[in-house]
């Protein structure tokens, strides 16, 4: 709903930065983060909205950041692709594909050294395993049995290029096995399954048994970057899209909750969320832009 609001209002020109929406991929973010403690850490990519919110990131500061306002989670310096909330363990989002992977690995190394018991998650896309640095990090993480879970959301595309044009046809989990890493594979649109697999991976990591590569199948509904639907442009078929629509993670959850969630209660929740979103939007709209002089701050610590 948050991202639908972004999509709806992007055209107004208040959100002046590239946005990569997670609509369709919500269950992966939520299932993974639900299996974590607040003090656990996550690192994300250009497509970071769902991760930020699932880890408890502040909605007002998110909208403000996307609108380039001083009240943004990083004061408007980064925009949509750089969301973070240190207090919630949303450590960083990095828009260079795979660039966050060694950072997350180093985070796990630090926690191992400090014996903090914390677990780190590197959220990555299917394309990031094409980058060499993924393999460099995986090798290191296994070698040092680091407390980390590499959560790969395979949405079948990198921008508009399908997986089969970028990688040979073999299970993506092979890349983990090649590095001697534990691997698991599940339906990323199934919240419960994701949660279960992730809980196993977290337990494994927390006990000092090392990393897991958790491959989650999912699908991006909107365009790669921007607010619109884009099936008409031809890089994927309408049929493929519709097939994934039937696997909508939210509808699936809804169905499962079934009788558990009284219609009234649901309505109330939706209303509450809508209010929250509208108020965050209003907050961001009303918030002042940062002062130009702030641009030269924080170059050096």
């Amino acid at each position: 709903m948050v991202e639908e609001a972004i999509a709806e209002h992007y055209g107004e020109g208040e959100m002046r930065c590239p946005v990569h929406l997670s609509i369709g991929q919500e269950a992966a973010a939520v299932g993974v983060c639900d299996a974590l403690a607040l003090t656990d850490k996550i690192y994300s990519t250009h497509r970071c909205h769902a991760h930020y919110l699932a880890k408890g990131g502040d909605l007002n500061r998110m909208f403000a950041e996307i609108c380039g306002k001083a009240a943004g989670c990083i004061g408007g310096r980064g925009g949509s692709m750089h969301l973070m909330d240190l207090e919630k363990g949303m450590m960083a989002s990095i828009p260079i594909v795979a660039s966050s992977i060694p950072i997350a690995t180093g985070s796990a190394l630090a926690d191992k050294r400090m014996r903090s018991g914390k677990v780190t998650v590197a959220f990555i896309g299917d394309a990031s395993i094409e980058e060499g640095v993924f393999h460099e990090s995986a090798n290191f993480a296994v070698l040092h049995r680091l407390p980390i879970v590499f959560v790969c959301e395979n949405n079948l595309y990198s921008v508009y290029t399908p997986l089969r044009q970028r990688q040979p046809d073999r299970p993506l989990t092979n890349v983990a096995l090649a590095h001697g890493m534990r691997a698991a594979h599940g339906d990323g649109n199934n919240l419960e399954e994701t949660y279960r697999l992730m809980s196993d991976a977290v337990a494994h990591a927390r006990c000092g048994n090392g990393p897991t590569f958790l491959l989650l199948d999912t699908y991006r509904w909107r365009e790669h970057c921007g607010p619109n639907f884009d099936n008409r442009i031809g890089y994927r078929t309408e049929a493929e899209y519709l097939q994934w629509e039937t696997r909508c993670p939210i509808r699936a959850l809804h169905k499962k909750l079934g009788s558990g969630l009284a219609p009234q209660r649901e309505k109330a929740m939706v209303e509450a969320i809508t209010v929250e979103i509208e108020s965050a939007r209003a907050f961001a709209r009303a918030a002042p832009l940062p002062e130009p002089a702030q641009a030269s701050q924080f170059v050096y610590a």
Partner: protein
Amino acid sequence: MTAQAVSQERIITLADAIREGLIESFARDDRTFMFAQGVDDPASMWGTIKGIAKRFGEDRIIEMPVAENGAVGIAVGAALNGQRPVIGFHRVEFALLALEQIVNNAAKSHYISNGQHKVPLVIRMVIGRGWGQGPEHSQSLEPIFSYFPGLKVVMPAFAADAKGMLISAIEDDNPVIFIEHRFLHYATGHVPEGYYKNPLDGPRVVREGKDVTIVATAHAVLEAIRAADVLRDIGCSVEVIDMRVLRPLNMATIQASVKKSGHLITVDTGFVMYGIGAEVVAAVVGQNFSALKAAPVRLGLPDHPTPSSRGLVVGVYPDSLRITREVGKMLGIGDDKMQLALASLEEQRKNLPIDAPDPFFKGPF
């Protein structure tokens, strides 16, 4: 001649000019091919690769996995073996992953092999700014590449040059870093039809003048021209030099201009510090010590990363207003005249967003 004359009427964007350059090169030499991320992406690198797959076939434009270091190395390997690859990076930042391949294998294979190997390779990189790209998607890293002997570094400001220099770059037997400023893709200009080459021979005077020399790169050239135009109206004659080729660096045009004008302003798209302007200034004072009548001024980015918010980029990018002001200061132009010039610039920019290409730069120039 008639074709040439007719073509002078033809106004297209720099992005389309690049696309035409690719098409001409692809048609003439089937050893030419391209590596791209997003061959089927409808955005098609600002339209620059639109329709190329359809026209020339899939094996002339190869989808590149997201693996930049590998891609450049593979392209170098293909180039060493008789192919003529072109690679495109949507953001210069992605090329940072490939710097080892660029610096060691692309730049040095000819040298290390004692002339036996050649690396006919073009690496397109998009630099620049706009629409909240933020600190990791809008850097201008031309000085990094310019540091390395063996590379050629080309940076067009105009559509016609972009096409003609791209064709030259593809036909060149050396690795050429071809830098495209993001905003310039939307700029328009007269572009001849068909095949032609513009030599990679160095800086060029794009506005003649005698009072001050402005040396600028890419988008900054357009800002300088705009400043030159309003300054002309108040009786100040500005010579604008488009750097065009940062390496190998041919200083002759710049030296001649400074000898005439005695005044030098450099305008970088990248950082001032350790930037292109530093080399230009040092080369001028080193070789023509007494030419300058006043301290040279270097403009460019201040010493911090380029933030996303439109609130934060106010004053970050050197624009025609700043250039105009610096010329005024350097030449001691009176306040009243300066007010005229600056007011006219402000009027032009009024109500325009700071983070999108300025329609003034549509050209043609």
